[in-house]
């Protein structure tokens, strides 16, 4: 909806790679920079919105991110996609603008958007879905910044492990372990809500009988 109403660059610009667009923009081709902007504008806006939960902050983050890219055109050398570089800048800017503790901002759920997209559903179903979404996002907020950003980048921005590793500047194995840790924490957190049907965690229950063996030998005649 928003892409249609916004001014879009020409088709030829959309077919060019990020590297070609960066080099063209470096030579003064502003249409190339506009094409880069329209290509990643919404993703960066959503990323800022997911972290800061404030649309105005998200817009400022998008503007700041692209203005930094504009200033850094002379030294940008994207090997493939420019997305990891832009997302890294956006993540850093977003965490600088995070709301302080105790400041309650409007939740991310967009009920009007939901109503618009699913008119056939009943209000009770929509309300139930909104409640589940609120619970899940609140559980994500309980994660630490390192684990939360991995979840946001994967489940909202759709980045794979390699791209997330580029954004957060760490090895892929670290991203994998962070994602797994985040999912386990979410499982522990959401198991308190019966709506999800998640069983309470029994991670520390040993599955081997050797672990429950007593340290002291049983007395003769005592049942084992």
């Amino acid at each position, binding site marked *: 909806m*928003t*892409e249609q*109403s*916004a*001014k879009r660059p020409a088709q030829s610009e959309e077919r060019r790679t990020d590297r070609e667009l960066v080099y063209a923009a470096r030579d003064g081709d*502003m249409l190339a*920079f*506009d094409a880069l902007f*329209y290509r990643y*504008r*919404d993703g960066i*806006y*959503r990323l800022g*919105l*997911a972290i800061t939960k404030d649309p105005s902050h*998200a*817009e400022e983050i998008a*503007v*700041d991110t*692209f*203005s*930094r890219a*504009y*200033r850094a055109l002379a030294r940008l050398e994207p090997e493939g996609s420019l997305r990891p570089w832009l997302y890294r800048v956006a993540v850093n800017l977003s965490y600088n603008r995070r709301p302080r503790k105790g400041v309650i901002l409007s939740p*991310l*759920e*967009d009920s009007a*958007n*939901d109503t618009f*997209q699913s008119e056939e559903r009943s209000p009770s179903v929509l309300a139930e*879905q909104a409640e*589940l*979404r609120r619970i*899940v*996002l609140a559980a994500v907020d309980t994660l630490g910044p390192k684990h939360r950003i991995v*979840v946001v980048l*994967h*489940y*909202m921005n*759709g980045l*794979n*492990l390699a791209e997330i590793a580029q954004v957060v500047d760490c090895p892929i194995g670290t991203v*994998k372990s962070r*994602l*797994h840790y985040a*999912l*386990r924490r*979410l*499982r522990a957190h*959401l*198991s308190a809500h019966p709506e*999800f*049907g*998640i*069983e309470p965690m029994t991670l*520390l*229950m*040993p*599955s*081997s009988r050797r672990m429950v063996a007593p340290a002291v030998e049983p007395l003769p005649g005592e049942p084992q």
Partner: protein
Amino acid sequence: MRLFPVACRAAEQKMADLFTGELHIRERLELEAHADSCARCDAALRDLSTISVALDRAYAPLRQRGTLLSPARVRLAARVEPRPVATWWRVGFVGRLSEATMALGFAALVLGGSLDIAVKPEIIPAASAPSVIKDYMRTQPPYEETAYLRWLRFQLRAIGAAAVPAVRYPAGGQYDVEQVTIEDDWLNTAGPR
């Protein structure tokens, strides 16, 4: 101390790959086979699948949101703004020193204005005062003809000239030199009028 069998630990590590879609089909089959034989890993796999789907649905409305930002706003923000130059009086110790100096100067001005200190100016006699204008006018020839002749004679005498050349003046309206007449001046511009 080992809490879980090796197979369960390996299965847990593969679960993250499963949800990111980066698990090979062979490993996925191994994971499912292990989950069939292990109730704990089966529950973990089922729960993590539920959470993964819930996260996907929770972020679905956000994935459809966008913004109407235009690149013109970026260009406006990226405009190179002049850096504020730190003036020298704002820099640390020098700033404090300049403030103290200015305060002392202002205090001295106030106190000095309140004191009646009579300072008599030194009177220079007008006769002995050097005057550049007078010297200049003295070296210039006067405009009046008689005074000019007297001035010229005086100057020649001052520089030690032997004799003053006689000055010939036009008398009776006649020039003391022969007049030149241009015959072929058909515009009649060169002749005396």
